[in-house]
């Protein structure tokens, strides 16, 4: 692997080819906020809180640090007026769904986000997908998944799998940035749903 030198917040940072901006920053202790990122999981790029400003080939752009691969001589700013403004609005958008999450409130304070800016629609879930991806990628159970598209997207436990797999696991609960409320709620609901009329196909 060849070594790449880039600049993050004015500091020269050495990174290996294939690393993301987020990994390079973390390796030297530069903090970039994340919500949907988890080191055990594939980068996902959904929350966009890790948005940073880059300068490459004479152009300035906003990119997701958790996905953008490092490049030689790349200039990265983890804070700038544009970055902060973007993060502020993104936080305001998700706070409408999870106004009481402490993790979100801490970030909101940092970026001056007003949790009441958009009308409350408390679904608790911000669709970061940590639970869904952890269950699929680490536990390989796929007991929870996304359903719906666009603004109707939500997470749902699959009762047939969840009723077998979830009782002794629940490893997704602490991952939830909105304190697992939604996950727990949905799980309970799924497990209490009447059994399907036809027997589910056996996995074995």
């Amino acid at each position, binding site marked *: 692997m060849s070594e790449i030198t880039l600049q993050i917040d004015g500091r020269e940072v050495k990174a290996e080819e294939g690393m993301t901006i987020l990994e390079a920053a973390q390796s030297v202790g530069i903090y970039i906020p994340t919500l949907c990122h988890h080191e055990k999981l594939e*980068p996902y*790029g*959904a*929350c*966009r*809180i890790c*948005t940073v400003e880059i300068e490459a080939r004479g152009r300035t752009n*906003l*990119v*997701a640090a958790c*996905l*953008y*691969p490092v490049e030689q001589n790349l200039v990265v700013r983890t804070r700038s007026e*544009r970055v902060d*403004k*973007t993060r502020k*609005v*993104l936080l305001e*958008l*998700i706070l*409408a769904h999870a106004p009481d999450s402490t993790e979100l409130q801490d970030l909101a304070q940092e970026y001056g986000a007003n949790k009441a800016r*958009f*009308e409350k629609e408390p679904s608790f879930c*911000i*669709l970061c*997908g940590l639970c869904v991806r952890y269950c699929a990628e680490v536990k390989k159970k796929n007991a929870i998944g*996304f359903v*719906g*598209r*666009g*603004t*109707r*997207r939500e997470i749902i436990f699959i009762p047939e799998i969840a009723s077998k797999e979830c009782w002794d696991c629940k490893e997704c609960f602490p991952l939830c940035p909105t304190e697992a409320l939604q996950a727990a709620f949905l799980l309970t609901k799924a497990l209490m749903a009447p059994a399907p009329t036809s027997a589910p196909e056996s996995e074995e």
Partner: protein
Amino acid sequence: MPRINSPAELKELRKDILSKRDPDKPCITLCSGTACHASGSEEVAASIEEEIKKQGLSGKVDFRKTGCHGFCEKGPIVVIHPEKICYLQIEPKDVPEIVSQTIKEKKVVERLLYTDPTTNEKTVHEFEIPFYKNQERLVFGSNGKIDPKSIDDYLALGGYSALAKALSQMTPEQVLEEVKKSNLRGRGGGGFPAGRKWEECRNAPGEIKYVIVNADEGDPGAYMDRSLLEGNPHSVLEGLIIGAYAIGSHEGYIYVRQEYPLAVENVGIAIKQAEEHGFLGENIFGSGFDFTVRVHRGAGAFVSGESSALMTAIEGRVGEPRPKYIHTAIKGVRDKPSCLNNVETWATVPLIINKGADWFAQLGTEGSKGTKIFSLVGKVNNTGLVEVPMGITLRDIIYKLGGGIPGDKKFKAVQTGGPSGGCIPEEQLDMKVDFDELAKAGSMMGSGGMIVMDEDTCMVDVAKYFLDFLSDESCGKCVPCREGIRQMLKILTNISKGEGKEGDIELLEELSQVTRDASLCALGRTAANPVLSTLRYFRDEYEAHIKEKRCPAYVCKALISYYIDPEKCQACTICFRQCPAQAIAGGKNQIHVIDQERCTKCGTCFEVCPPRFGAVKKISGEPVPPPIPEEERMIARESKEK
């Protein structure tokens, strides 16, 4: 069918096909594209076949069901060859006359010809009709000449000769150079130079590479890719094989929407025929080049037309976009280099190979070469598909080809580029249409949708419509797109309900910025375009909605009222009888009055009031005048004898 093993054998086959065809033999072609199908072309086809038999012309006249001719407004379309006499809006009852008069007697049936709506002049030939006359139908023109299910028809027009040329006379590098030199830009939306994408894919490391046809056209009102794939599938296939040769790919996909059954059927037939002829498979034309192609049917998500989402769907997963910081040309389907182009882009390639990059590059503008197919729909007289050189003005498209706005209405805006495009106002109509100019005007080329709007269109309502579409069709993965669209739609809905607030416009702009800057894929990054472009050109309409609670186009129901002018009402009782909500008080010789409480604002009274009275009015932004007192409602009619 014998396999064609060399360019010489292809030439022989073509000669053989042509020798069996008499160019002077009468041939009836009938448009059988989806639009004409919906207007009854199947029944017309049956009666043509029957009538040929009945009038004893079996064997003496050919009949061909072709793909879409483009003039969908006037379908089903019949063209009689070799004279190219064009009959429009044909019904089965017209067929006996066409056969007996035009085929037998060589006489033109006047009443079935194109009639100019202003001069009432009749036009006999297809190529003289203004709609066609001002087009340059390079890619789309063959549609009207061939039966898409017949490879012989395609071969007769010189089909697969570009492939033969590429494989026998050119190296892959030369093919690539030719396409690069032509400056062909992707017709699917982004306008990325096709040659550069091909080169990137060719140079990407890896043995396995894929080439992909994106036929997941999903823009409301757009159907050019559909018509091309349905009407001339071999042209797309030939372009794809040439591209694969240039890139060094041996496997291809055609990703086509399941909702396009005729396209799926015709492309399937075309692939089978191409395999039988040896244009697909191993050692094509004896060149040693192998290539196979598979059809992948899309399951109906608009976002799957985004290249990375489409590739994820091909892998068998949910069609959601993924980051493209590393281009799909390097890391695409199953992480292999994958070159995806739109239907129209691929179909243009054989032309470039046959006629040369220089020929292609002389068409169009500095930055956008060649022609582009647009689907011209909405409030325009001649709706349909038009192929025009890049650089034509919007005005020419709408007025010369489109025949202007129906019903003497005023033009208001044209929406280009699909749901993520923008609305362009009257003052920009002389803009030359190409990738860069449209982008400068705050819209985009997109895949070529063009929706014309007249003065009765509310621009807030238009923005709301597209945002509503996008809120369903966003995949919902990333926050700025999902939540940004959700909030923008809420604000627009409020404005259209008269609940807009001071600051809403600024908030829309702020959300637009974040959605544009931070979204994962192009759908999100362009989702705010309908809002931004309407704000840019029609800000006063937004302000009227918010500040005066007035909808200047009289569209937003919450902001309008219907009112019967007592001076004009003749008590004809038409509206009184037709009102579905029984909200009109009236009767014989009684001036009618609308009960505003009961009125559902359906607009029936407005539509049915005879124009010579014109008594029903739409009101917005001002109070409805109080109803005239009941004792004054009686109309004193003057005696008829007087």
